[in-house]
C-alpha cells in the first residue's frame, strides 16, 4: 500500500498493521484485498495460458510438457480464470469498493458477511492449491462426468470442494448487494437515479443468488458420485451424464452473465464520464441489463446442441439464445450514441472503454454463429468457441475490469497513474488480444478441436500467430502492472474528481475517508455533468457553486 501522503484520515490510513486489514469490516479494504487476490490469481492463470500457447507452437509432442501436463495446464487456466478471477473480479473487487460509496452509504448492509465472503474466496483458492498438491486435476473446467468421476487424478475432490466454497463466497456477495441496493439507497435516489453500474451489479447479484446454489449442489452431487458411486450421473448405473451437463450449464451459462453484466455497467459509466455528457438511453441500458439477467436462465441448453438431447430442445434453446442478442445490441448502440457529440477524453480508461465496444461487438456477433443450429454443429467444441468466449469473457469482461480499475484507481489509491504508459499498455493488450483470438476463429471454423495437445501441421501457422499475439498481450499486462505499481509510490496525488464523474464516489476525497461521507451527499442525476467545472487548482473537477444540487435529468 502507498505510504500515507498526508496526515489526513482515509480508509488506507485508518488503522494500521496487518490485523487492521485482516479483520476489517470496511467494504473498501475488503474490495482492495479482493482486487489484490484476484490480480494474483490472474497472474497465475495467465502463466498457465502462456504455457498452453507456447506448447501449441509445436504440433507434435514437446519434451517439456507431456500430454497430461498440458491437460492439467488448460484445466487450471480455465478453472482459475473463471472461478477465481472473472466471477469475483468486478462484483467482489470493484463492486465492493464502489457500490456503497455510489449509494452514499457507509458500508454494505452486512459487512461481516462481506468479510466472510472474502475469506471463503481464500479458502476456495486454498482448495485449488490443495488440489494441485493432491496430484492435480485434468477434467477441464467444466468437470464433465463420467470423465471427472473416473479420472485417476486425486485433485478432483479438492477442486470441487473449492468451487463449492467459492460459490458461497459469490452468493454472500450477491446477497449483500441485493440488500444494500434495496435498503441503503439515499433519499432522492430512486431506481432510475442509480448509476448504471449499480443496475448491472443488481442484475448480477440476482443471478449470483439464484444460479450459484444450483452449481453448488451439482458439484456436490458430482463429488458424491465420485466418492460413493451413487449412480445418478453414471450411465452404467442407470444414470445420465447429460443430466450433469444440464445442471452444470444451468449455472454456468448465467455465470457468463455474472461476468459480462457488471462489465457492461462499468463501460456505461466509463463511456458517459469520459465523454463528459449524459448517457444516451439510460432506461434502455438499465432494462437491457435486467432482460439479459432473465434470459440468462433460459438458454443453458445451447451448450449441448451436439449432446444428443432432443432436436426440439435444441430448436427451443437456439430460439431463446437469439433473444440475448437484442439487449446486447441495444447496449452497444446506446454507447455509440453516447459518444456522439460528446467531449471525449481519449485517456487510458476511455481507450479501454472503446476497446471493449469493439471486442464485445466481435464476441457478440460470433455468438450468432454459435447460436445458429446448423453452424454450431460444425463449430461446437472447436477453437471458434474458444475464440468466441475469450472475446466475451476476456476481451469484454476482463478488459472492462482493467478499464474500471483505471477509472477508479485514483479513488482507490489516491494516486494518478502514468497516462502515456497507460495508453501503450492498453494498445499492446488490444493488439495482442486480437492477434491471439481472431486467428482462433479461423482455426475453429477450419475444424481444429479445442483441448488438443497434438494437431495437424496445417493449423500450425494460425497457432504461431496466436501464440505471438499472446506474448504481445502478456507484455501489455506486464507494462500495466509496472506503471500501476509505480504510481502507488511515485504517482501524482489524485484529486477527488479527476475525470469529471458525477456519481457519489467522486464527491468524496481520494482515497475516501473511513466512513465514506461525513454527511450524506446530495443525490442528483448521476449522468448530468453540466454543473461540473474543471478546477485547475486541484487538477480535477468540482461542482460549480451556482448550480448546486441540480436534480433534473437534463437534456430532454
Amino acid at each position, binding site marked *: 500500500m502507498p505510504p500515507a501522503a498526508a496526515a489526513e484520515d482515509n480508509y488506507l490510513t485508518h488503522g494500521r498493521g496487518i490485523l487492521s486489514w485482516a479483520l476489517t469490516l470496511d467494504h473498501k479494504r475488503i474490495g482492495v484485498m479482493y482486487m489484490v487476490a484476484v490480480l494474483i490469481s490472474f497472474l497465475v492463470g495467465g502463466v498457465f495460458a502462456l504455457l498452453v500457447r507456447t506448447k501449441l507452437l509445436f504440433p507434435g509432442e514437446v519434451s517439456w510438457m507431456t500430454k497430461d501436463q498440458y491437460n492439467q495446464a488448460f484445466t487450471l487456466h480455465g478453472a482459475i480464470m473463471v472461478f477465481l478471477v472473472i466471477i469475483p473480479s468486478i462484483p467482489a473487487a470493484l463492486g465492493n469498493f464502489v457500490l456503497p460509496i455510489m449509494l452514499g452509504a457507509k458500508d454494505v448492509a452486512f459487512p461481516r458477511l462481506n468479510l466472510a465472503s472474502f475469506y471463503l474466496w481464500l479458502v476456495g483458492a486454498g482448495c485449488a492449491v490443495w488440489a494441485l498438491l493432491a496430484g492435480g486435476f485434468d477434467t477441464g473446467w467444466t468437470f464433465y462426468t463420467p470423465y471427472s468421476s473416473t479420472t485417476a487424478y486425486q485433485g478432483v475432490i479438492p477442486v470441487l470442494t473449492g468451487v463449492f466454497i467459492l460459490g458461497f463466497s459469490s452468493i454472500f456477495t450477491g446477497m449483500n448487494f441485493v440488500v444494500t441496493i434495496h435498503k441503503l439507497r439515499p433519499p432522492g435516489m430512486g431506481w432510475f437515479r442509480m448509476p448504471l453500474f449499480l443496475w448491472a451489479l443488481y442484475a448480477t447479484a440476482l443471478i449470483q443468488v439464484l444460479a450459484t446454489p444450483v452449481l453448488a449442489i451439482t458439484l456436490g*452431487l458430482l463429488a*458424491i458420485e465420485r466418492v460413493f458411486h*451413487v449412480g445418478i450421473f453414471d450411465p452404467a*448405473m442407470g444414470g445420465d451424464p447429460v443430466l450433469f451437463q444440464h445442471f452444470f450449464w444451468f449455472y454456468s451459462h448465467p455465470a457468463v452473465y455474472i461476468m459480462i453484466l457488471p462489465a457492461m455497467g462499468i463501460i456505461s459509466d466509463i463511456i458517459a464520464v469520459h465523454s463528459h455528457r449524459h448517457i444516451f438511453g439510460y432506461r434502455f441500458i438499465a432494462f437491457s441489463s435486467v432482460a439479459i439477467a432473465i434470459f440468462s436462465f433460459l438458454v443453458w441448453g445451447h451448450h449441448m446442441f451436439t449432446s444428443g438431447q432432443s432436436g426440439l430442445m435444441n430448436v427451443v434453446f437456439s430460439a431463446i439464445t437469439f433473444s440475448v442478442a437484442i439487449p446486447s445490441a441495444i447496449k452497444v448502440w446506446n454507447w455509440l450514441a453516447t459518444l456522439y457529440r460528446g467531449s471525449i477524453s481519449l485517456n487510458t480508461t476511455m481507450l479501454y472503454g472503446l476497446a471493449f465496444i469493439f471486442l464485445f461487438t466481435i464476441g457478440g456477433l460470433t455468438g450468432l454463429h454459435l447460436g445458429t443450429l446448423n453452424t454450431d454443429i460444425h463449430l461446437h467444441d472447436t477453437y471458434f468457441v474458444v475464440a468466441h468466449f475469450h472475446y466475451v469473457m476476456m476481451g469484454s469482461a476482463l478488459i472492462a475490469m482493467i478499464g474500471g480499475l483505471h477509472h477508479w484507481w485514483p479513488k482507490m489509491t489516491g494516486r494518478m497513474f502514468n497516462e502515456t504508459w497507460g495508453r501503450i499498455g492498453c494498445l499492446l493488450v488490444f493488439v495482442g488480444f486480437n492477434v491471439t483470438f481472431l486467428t482462433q476463429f479461423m482455426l475453429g471454423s477450419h475444424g481444429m478441436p479445442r483441448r488438443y495437445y497434438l494437431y495437424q501441421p496445417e493449423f500450425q501457422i494460425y497457432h504461431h500467430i496466436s501464440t505471438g499475439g499472446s506474448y504481445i498481450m502478456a507484455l501489455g499486462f506486464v507494462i500495466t502492472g509496472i506503471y500501476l505499481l509505480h504510481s502507488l509510490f511515485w504517482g501524482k496525488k489524485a484529486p477527488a474528481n479527476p475525470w469529471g464523474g458525477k456519481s457519489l464516489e467522486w464527491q468524496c476525497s481520494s482515497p475516501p475517508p473511513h466512513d465514506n461521507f461525513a454527511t450524506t451527499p446530495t443525490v442528483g442525476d448521476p449522468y448530468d455533468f453540466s454543473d461540473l467545472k474543471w478546477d485547475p487548482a486541484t487538477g480535477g473537477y468540482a461542482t460549480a457553486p451556482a448550480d448546486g444540487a441540480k436534480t433534473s435529468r437534463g437534456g430532454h
Partner: protein
Amino acid sequence: MSAIPTPTHDAHGHDAHGHGEHGHGDHGKYPFLRHHFDTPAQQFDSAKLGMWVFLATEILFFGALFAMYAILRFKHPEVFEYASHYLDTIMGGINTCVLILSSLTMAMAVYFAQRSKKGPLVFCLFLTLLGAVGFLVIKYFEYTHKFHENLVWGASFYKPVDEEERVIVTTPHQAPATLAEQSTAPDLSPGAASAALVKLPAADASVVKKAALGPGGLAPASGSPEQEAEVKAEEATEKALPHLLDPKMPVNTHQFFAIYYCMTGLHGIHVVIGMGMILWLMWGAMRGRYDGNYYTPVDLGGLYWHIVDLIWIFLFPLFYLIH
C-alpha cells in the same frame, strides 16, 4: 453522527414493516444499531430482506435436487413406486409431526421475543431444539435400519458395503440356517420382505462373492464365462439380500435410494445447522440480548427453521407417500 440530516424512513417506506419507527440519531439510544444503518427499522428490514434472499438460495439449492428427483422419477416411475415401500411411513409421519410442532414452538419463541418475555422465549427455543433432536434421532434409526438392510446407494445396493469385513465376522453356523429359511419361502410382498429382513443377520452377506446383480445398463456385452460366473454369484446374492429376492424389483432401484439419501441427508445437515443456531439463540436469550426493540436474530432464525420444516413437508410425501 447524530447530525446526519437524512435517511429518513421514507426512502425505505415501501418495505417498512412498521417495527420501531425511531427517527434519527438512534445510535446512542440503541447499542445494537450498527454504524452504517440510520435507524433500527432500516437495520431490521435489511436483515429480513437478507434472510429472504438467503432463503431463496436455499430453495434453489434444494430446488436443484427436486428437479433431479423429478427427472429421475419421470425416467423411472416404477422404481419410485416400488422402492417407496421400503421407507417407514410411520417413522416419517412422526418426524413430520415433530417438525411441525417444532415450527410452532419456534413461532411462539418469536412471539415471546417480540414481547420481551425472556423465560418463555428460552423455554420455546428449548422445545424447538428438542424437536430437532427428536427428528434426528428418528432419522438415525431410519438410516441405520436401512444400512442394515443394505438399502443404500449405488452398486452397494446390490452387495454389502463392508463385504470383506463381514466375511471375517461371519460365524459359520448362522448363515446356512437363515439362508434355507429365506430361500424356501420367499414372500413377495414388500412388507413381508422387509419384515423378514429384520430377522436376517448381517452375517448372511458372507455368501456373497462379488458385485453381482447389475442394474439395467450395467451389464456389458453378455455371454463371457465371467458373466456366467456372475449370474451364479447373483443367485447367491439374492438369497442373501432380501430386497433382491423380490423378482418384482425394477432395475435401477438404487437410484431411488441415491436421491433419497442426497435429499434427506442435505435436509439433515440443515437440521444440524439449525440446532446450532437455536443453541446460539438460547444462549443469547438467556443473557437477555433480545427484547421488543431487538429480536432480529430470533426472527431470522425462525424464518430459517420454518424453511427447513417446509422442505421436509415436501420431502415426506415425495418419498414416503408415493403408493
